[in-house]
């Protein structure tokens, strides 16, 4: 394992992790389906998706704990897909931490170094424990640490080997919300400090967005979209991404034309514009989408007919059907003339009195914030609250 001891140089291209047509089947069930993925060196990469979508399986294939049914995995151009786990320049932070209960913290962290016959174990372990702020805990056993401390030991135990890629499988899943937020910042700090590629699995979209440079949204064994948090949020590629990452209003519309930069659609009689770069379909029936916080409400004069200003989209004739005050903002549900309920978040800036249930309102937003999705996709895909609701109704 000569290349294990080499310090990866942050930003140095070429040590990328690549998965090519990787498939994993358990019997007849396909857990990961023909996956292609490139993780650039030094990135904080998040693999995000609902439970059972194949995140852990993907990670385990990279670690060598599961053998791909098909496909290849390379690191820095070297094919590692058939190597034993202990021959791979990869380390894992397990979801359950998997700390060795019969070894103290020092020996847990030293485990990888000792197996590789590295010198100066004591010095390195000491520095690593300092990095994760556990200096002085070396003599304790895993059972004598809190959840957050155990999590940091698991991290230190993997990081000390300076792997080319560090895999983290929902490392914060077992922590309470406060500790979670704290550890997110901590993890991000450590990653920036050591410059190692992190592949972080999570099903918490907020966690992925705050930490990662790049997010891959996974669903049913395939990657739906890959990009920076901003890209994914502002121009989702599928209804699943639009709902799983934040919330979206999706309105059925027909493409009626286009101009210089925009695709023009007709939604229940209103003319909407969306930037062509955010249009996943440019003809036929589409979902016209907008994030709830991008929408402004104006008192509806019962459809005063005033044409929307240039660059603005306008839906008229709504009725406020629900108002919830959430402190910094207020969440409105607005029933549209065609029966659909749309969600609007408004900042409580105090500039205007809030609306009440029954008030007539119009919706207005900058057309730049509109995206168009394939109408063949389920408008509620990835919408967890909707899934819970319909499930509740079914039983």
């Amino acid at each position, binding site marked *: *394992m000569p290349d*294990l001891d080499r310090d990866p140089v942050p930003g140095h291209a070429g040590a990328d992790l690549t998965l090519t047509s990787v498939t994993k089947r358990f019997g007849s069930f396909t857990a990961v389906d023909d996956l292609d993925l490139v993780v650039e060196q030094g990135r904080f990469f998040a693999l995000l998706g609902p439970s059972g979508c194949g995140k852990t399986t993907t990670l385990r294939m990279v*670690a*060598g*704990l599961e053998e791909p049914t098909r496909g290849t995995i390379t690191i820095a151009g070297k094919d590692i897909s058939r190597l*034993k*786990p*202990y021959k791979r320049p*990869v*380390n*894992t932070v*397990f979801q*359950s931490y*998997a*700390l*060795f*209960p*019969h070894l103290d913290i020092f020996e847990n962290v030293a*485990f*990888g170094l000792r*197996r*590789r016959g590295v010198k100066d174990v004591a010095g390195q372990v000491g520095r690593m424990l300092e990095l994760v702020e556990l200096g002085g805990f070396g003599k304790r*056993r895993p*059972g*004598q640490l809190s959840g957050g401390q155990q999590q940091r030991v698991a991290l230190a*135990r*993997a990081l000390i*080997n300076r792997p080319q890629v560090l895999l983290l499988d929902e490392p914060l899943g077992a922590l309470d919300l406060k500790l979670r937020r704290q550890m997110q910042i901590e993890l991000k700090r450590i990653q920036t400090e050591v410059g190692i590629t992190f592949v972080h699995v999570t099903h918490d979209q907020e966690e992925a967005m705050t930490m990662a440079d790049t997010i891959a949204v996974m669903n049913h064994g395939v990657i739906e979209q890959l990009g920076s948090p901003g890209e994914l949020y502002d121009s989702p590629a599928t209804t699943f991404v639009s709902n799983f990452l934040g919330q979206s209003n999706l309105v059925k519309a027909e493409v009626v034309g286009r101009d210089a930069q925009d695709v023009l659609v007709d939604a229940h009689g209103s003319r909407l514009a969306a930037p062509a770069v955010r249009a996943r379909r440019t003809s036929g029936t589409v979902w016209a989408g907008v994030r709830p916080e991008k929408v402004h409400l104006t008192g509806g004069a019962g459809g005063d007919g005033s044409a929307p200003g240039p660059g603005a989209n306008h839906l008229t004739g709504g009725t406020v059907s629900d108002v919830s005050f959430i402190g910094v903002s207020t969440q409105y549900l607005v029933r549209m003339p065609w029966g659909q309920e749309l969600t609007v978040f408004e900042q409580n800036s105090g500039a205007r009195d809030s609306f009440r249930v029954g008030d007539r309102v119009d919706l207005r937003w900058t057309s730049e914030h509109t995206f168009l999705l394939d109408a063949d996709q389920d408008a509620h895909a990835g919408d967890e609250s909707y899934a819970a609701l319909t499930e509740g109704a079914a039983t």
Partner: protein
Amino acid sequence: MSRVGRWVTEHAVMAVAMLVLVYMFLPIFYVVLMSFNDQGRLAYEFQGFTLANWEDPCGPSGMCGAVVKSLQIGFLATLGATLLGTLVAFALVRHRFRGRAATSLLIFLPMATPEVVMGSSLLALFTSVGLSGSLGFWSILVAHIMFCLSFVVVTVKARLAGLDSAMEQAAMDLYANEWQTFWRITFPLVFPGIMAAALLSFSLSFDDFIVTNFNHGNTVTFPMYVWGAAQRGIPPQVNVVGTVMFILALALVLGGSLLQRRRPA
């Protein structure tokens, strides 16, 4: 729950439990008491206090020799049964093979067979192959390993099945090959189970009378000695041995659990 019901479950259960414990300790109290018995003709009643038995534990001829025999057999039987049983347990939990159901049955059956049946059938076997004249140390050992084996398999298997496979995966992820993973992770984590199995084997072997009685030839183990002596009237030193065994085992168990508390697993 009614108030009466609650009170009953709160206190009565504990009180009954304490009474049962007293019942369990009653004979021990007698064993300790009788070890100080200034014994006359009546072997089963307390006659008066003396330290003589404790000062001369090996007084009755042949008793200490029998204790040593039992220790030797117990040690070797434990070694054999623990080794063979641990291997079987690993095979059962970690490997695929044909005839799993038959194997499980074969392991279960000795535990369900009365000792008198096991002992007599073994004697019948030894007799039929013409070994009845040379029964002794070896035949006792063979028999003890046989009936301890199943208990070892069950004990170690339970521990092994409860082992989180993530431990071994984590070791492999941290550059330990299969061999290192086994010796540094799997084995130390299963070790308490193996230890428990060994202790169980030792006590089963050391204490066995029935199976031994059929296959002992001229070899006298401690239970065999006590049985023989019981026909004539047992010497009080038997109770000295009983008391020492009790104290040693108690010290071992309490010491072990104290050690474990100091360094929680």
